[in-house]
């Protein structure tokens, strides 16, 4: 709750329109949260290491599913019988969402089976840092023609 209060006397009467400034402008904050973030989220899932073996042969057949906020999931092909798979999976996601709906990136690693696939593990990764700080100014643009 945000409250402002004042006490006025005859000597110090209330002056019309002398309200103190609002420190925490909720309307502005909400507007900022509703502000749309538009762009491309580029993800590279390079490799997995020492993954849990989910098959009886002591291996897994691992693949990755990447969930990005407000976009369709993307899945990479499985790599057979490998606990150290090098996927080099590079999905791109179009993002067009209000700031407050940008949930973390979720990555699932699954073991491919004939029947139901087994989950090896998951990980959520906050992308706040990427959204707040997407790029650096290309200062050398004048010197070189490209960066």
């Amino acid at each position, binding site marked *: 709750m945000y409250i402002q209060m004042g006490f006025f006397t005859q000597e110090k009467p209330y002056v019309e329109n002398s309200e103190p400034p609002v420190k925490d402008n909720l309307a502005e904050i909400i507007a900022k949260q509703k502000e749309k*973030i*538009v*762009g*491309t*989220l*580029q*993800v*590279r*899932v*390079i*490799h*997995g*290491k*020492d*993954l*849990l073996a989910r098959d009886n042969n002591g291996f897994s057949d691992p693949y*990755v599913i990447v969930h990005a906020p407000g976009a369709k999931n993307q899945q990479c092909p499985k790599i057979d019988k490998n*606990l*150290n798979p*090098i996927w080099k999976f590079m999905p791109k996601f179009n*993002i067009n969402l209000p700031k407050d709906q940008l949930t973390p*990136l979720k*990555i699932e*690693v699954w073991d491919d089976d004939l029947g139901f696939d087994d*989950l*090896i*593990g*998951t*990980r959520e*990764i906050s*992308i706040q*840092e*990427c*959204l707040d*700080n*997407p*790029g*650096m*100014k*290309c200062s050398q*643009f*004048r010197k070189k023609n*490209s*960066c």
Partner: protein
Amino acid sequence: MLPISEKKLMLTRYLGVWCINNKYKLIGSKDLEAKLGPGSFGEIYVQVRFLKEGMLDDNKEPELLENLEAVLAEQNALIKGTLKLNLNHAKNLISKDGKPGNPYCIITAPNNKLAKTQIIKNTINPIFESKRTFPISLTKREATEKVKFFYIHG
């Protein structure tokens, strides 16, 4: 002096930065984690960047923190050579009944090569003076295997 349009272009040229370049431990399902303990699910290496609308995509590959391909290649490279082993003697080989036995030794080296020394009769301090050569061909990963000695009272 650059024309104004080019100046404006320069100001809006931003290069995407790979803000996330990390290895993450996987988190498993609750029941498996209770059984196997946390940290038994492996890790993934992930890079992420966000290109805001209008930003420049340099299409360049970010630098890798860890090149697993190279690491695995190194671990799987074969180490070839000969292991020379001189077993000179053993001391105080007390048998169960306290009497001297007829000891001999079995040596196992990596690659499962077995070697047996001659039997030295009626002693607790056998002098074997056994010289062996084992040809070895293994990967770095397998090279952690140990040479084992088994003394047996014949």
